[in-house]
């Protein structure tokens, strides 16, 4: 198979294991490309991509933009903070106006879950979801699982614990889907207030004690506390959260076994993870960032092949 089953990348839920493996194989090649003296290929030179960000982002946006430029695509950037959205334009109108300027693909981040799915029903261009509210963040899950595959040889059969604010995390949901499709065992761990009530129905284990979770897992994916999405208090204080759920190097070294530590960023050092753990040899946080560009190149390349 050399073609994705979908025209869009809206979520990991919609794609197959074969799709994920095709993206990984293609990303292997792009990883070689971005480590060359000239880190650029002309594949997408006749493709125009709009990065439409209705919500703030640094890493994802930079990573997408770099991936697009490494593929020689033409790139336009749009952010809601300085646009007509403020003047009352609807999402569909905004995007249709961008498409009228002959744009082939849309990379979109939006605060509302399902926004890219809605768009996919109304427009022709390929859409890549760069995060929709608390729903999915497919490219993050792809780069996370790709990084696990790179470090441990494969994802299948590995035990992965996702630790932290599961309730507000699109990274958690996409990771659960991706890991399960690739045959990994998944556990979520966090304070009861930050775990969705019916998370067990997704077939994941639930653990409230972070030490037990670490004891169990091969990989710990530590998530950020998303204070910006929390309208009420879910735990007494950040200090208390850090005390019970923060990962530090001492905990990792007491385990007597290697645990790979991941974090999708941005890190709140000293809250969910301490500096000595984030910068330890256990950590593959910066590999994740590097792999992010290769994964996004692969996704854009494969989607561009199905206009």
């Amino acid at each position, binding site marked *: 198979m*050399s*073609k994705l089953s979908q025209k869009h990348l809206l979520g990991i839920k919609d794609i197959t294991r074969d799709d994920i493996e*095709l993206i990984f*194989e*293609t990303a292997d*090649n792009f990883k*070689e*490309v971005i480590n*060359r*003296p*000239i880190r*650029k*290929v*002309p*594949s*997408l030179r*006749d*493709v125009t991509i709009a990065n439409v960000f209705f919500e703030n982002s640094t890493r994802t946006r930079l990573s997408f933009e770099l991936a697009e430029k490494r593929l020689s695509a033409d790139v336009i950037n749009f952010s809601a903070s300085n646009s007509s959205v403020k003047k009352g334009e609807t999402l569909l109108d905004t995007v249709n106006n961008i498409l009228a300027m002959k744009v082939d693909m849309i990379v979109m981040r939006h605060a509302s879950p399902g926004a890219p799915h809605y768009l996919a029903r109304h427009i022709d261009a390929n859409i890549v979801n760069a995060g929709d509210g608390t729903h999915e963040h497919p490219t993050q899950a792809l780069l996370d699982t790709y990084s696990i595959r790179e470090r441990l040889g494969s994802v299948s059969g590995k035990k992965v614990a996702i630790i932290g604010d599961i309730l507000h995390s699109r990274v958690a949901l996409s990771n659960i889907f991706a890991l399960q499709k690739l045959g990994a065992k998944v556990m979520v761990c966090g304070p009861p207030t930050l775990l969705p009530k019916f998370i067990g129905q997704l077939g994941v284990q639930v653990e409230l004690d972070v030490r037990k979770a670490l004891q169990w897992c091969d990989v710990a994916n530590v998530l950020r506390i998303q204070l910006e999405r929390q309208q009420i208090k879910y735990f007494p204080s950040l200090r208390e959260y850090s005390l019970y759920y923060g990962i530090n190097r001492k905990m990792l070294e007491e385990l007597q076994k290697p645990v790979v530590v991941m974090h999708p960023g941005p890190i709140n050092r000293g809250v969910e993870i301490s500096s000595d753990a984030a910068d330890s040899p256990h950590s593959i946080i910066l590999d994740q960032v590097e792999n992010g560009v290769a994964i996004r190149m692969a996704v854009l*390349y*494969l989607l*561009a*092949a199905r*206009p």
Partner: protein
Amino acid sequence: MQKKLILDSNLLDITVSRLCQQLIENHNTFSDTVIIGMQPRGIFLAELIHTKLEKHIKRDIPLGYLDVTFHRDDFRRRDEPILPKENRIPFIIEEKNVVLVDDVLFTGRTVRAAMDALIAFGRPAKVELLVMIDRKYNRELPIAPDYVGRTVNTMASQRVLVELQAQGHKQNKIWLINKD
């Protein structure tokens, strides 16, 4: 489907030997020359020539593989994308003489892509092209090989099939196939 044998095992061996002699004639001791096989099928021929050359020259000659998928000009014009293969050029090509090796030269578009892909790795002093089969009258670009195993007059509807032992075939053979 009709198959016609263009080169059998014996003849192919003689041809490879002749190509090696021509290369030695031009590149002498191969001190500044590298061989690069084009993915996916050119690499087997490149390996064949490389092994033979090293026997003659009695020194190591750098051998690499080049994949041109990302540099093709027909991306988004085909129904399915071509899956890329491995690039392996573990040496510097800057100021080197590069011999590009492929099994069949047809429209010349792959070779154009290869030259494009190659300069992403540096600026070679000279690039030459070696092909086992040159399909005459089918070129779409002004590209000509420097070393040719066999020139064949073909129609666009025909296909050249290269079977090498390195690819898992019993014998080295090259066929011309008529598609009905």
